[in-house]
């Protein structure tokens, strides 16, 4: 396989799983943040 092609495939092999892991961390952190600071009654009415 050509060097550039191999590098592109390697980039995909590293970046795609990493992105899903980062997004997974974002999801977890966002869920925790949302639960930690629920909206007050005033904010819910808004």
């Amino acid at each position: 396989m050509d060097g550039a092609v191999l590098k592109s495939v390697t980039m995909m092999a590293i970046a795609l799983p990493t992105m899903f892991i980062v997004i997974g961390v974002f999801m977890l952190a966002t869920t925790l943040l949302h639960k930690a600071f629920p909206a007050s009654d005033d904010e819910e009415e808004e």
Partner: protein
Amino acid sequence: MESLLLQYPWLDELLMGFIGLTWKHVVMWAISALLIYLAVKRDYEPNLLLPIGFGALLANIPSSSAISQVVGEEGFLWVLYKGGIANELFPILIFIAIGAMCDFTPLIRRPIVMLFAAAAQVGIFGTAILATLMGFSFEHAASIGIIGAADGPTTIYVASRFAQELLGPLSVAAYSYMSLVPIIQPPVIKALTTESERKIKMGYSEEDAVSKTTQFLFPLMIVLIAGIVAPISVALIGSLMFGNILKVSGVVENLSNAAQNELSNLVTLLLGITIGGTMSGENFLTVQVAMIMGLGAVAFVFDTAGGVLFAKLLNLFRTEKINPMIGACGISAFPMSGRVIAKMALKEDPSNFIIQHAIGVNVAGQVASVVAGGLVLALIPALAK
């Protein structure tokens, strides 16, 4: 003619516009006219295509003073290029403006939508592989793949680092295809879904309101996580989230408004005309550029397919099915993609309102595209060694 010019040297100065004219200039005038037509008559991303089209016209007049690189006589487009694109300033300023416009509350309410956005970035990598198979260098291929982020500023940011000579065509491809989302996405979605899948209804459950504190802490949290994973992405994600915190803090409404309006308009204007200024016939009318335009379309098709297929995959494990069309909104073309998919759902079934879900995924696409851009930025130098 040459003897005439030797006899009357001042004629050279007077006729330089005619003498320097080539077929490439004329073809580029036609391309400028096409971009201006699409902006004015078809309303395709007019804020960008109109300045790009006009900038391209200025760059394709023989001996144009607008793009002169002669020391002491630098043209204004060259000065803007050096001061705003070569140093990545304009895309960063645009991100501040976009951040100030973004409302992340749908994403905070339903963080799972970020998964679709991640899946819809697959086009970046698929296109990069295809580009290397077509003979592009790894750095250029990765920069071409970034068109698949469907995010103009990220494309410009990556290209200005790793493919400066391709900046013009990459930017034009990114913004042109973003404006063509209503044409590109529907046939791909239809090819990958059945009618019954497109008619899946997604209910509206009672949703918690998002507190001001959560809205305020969200951009800080994203910057910290993304920054630690890929420090090279701090400029991109940091400027996006800086713009957002101006908005959600609630204490600097004047700055938030300035970012959303004055900053956005001014930088868009300068960015557009400067990119147009890079589109000289010499650089633009090449087989390489034709291939980039083709690969840009492929990137959008791959992205759409990635999002839709990922949603279908999730449906295999869920009792409450997701309309797989919303997976296609994971691209960053906001809010166009969300609206297109919501319209498609209504066309299939006039009582199927999925816009809330579609827009949530589309907002997540903003974040995912920047994360993907950051990872590519980090990996290009590491793998190119």
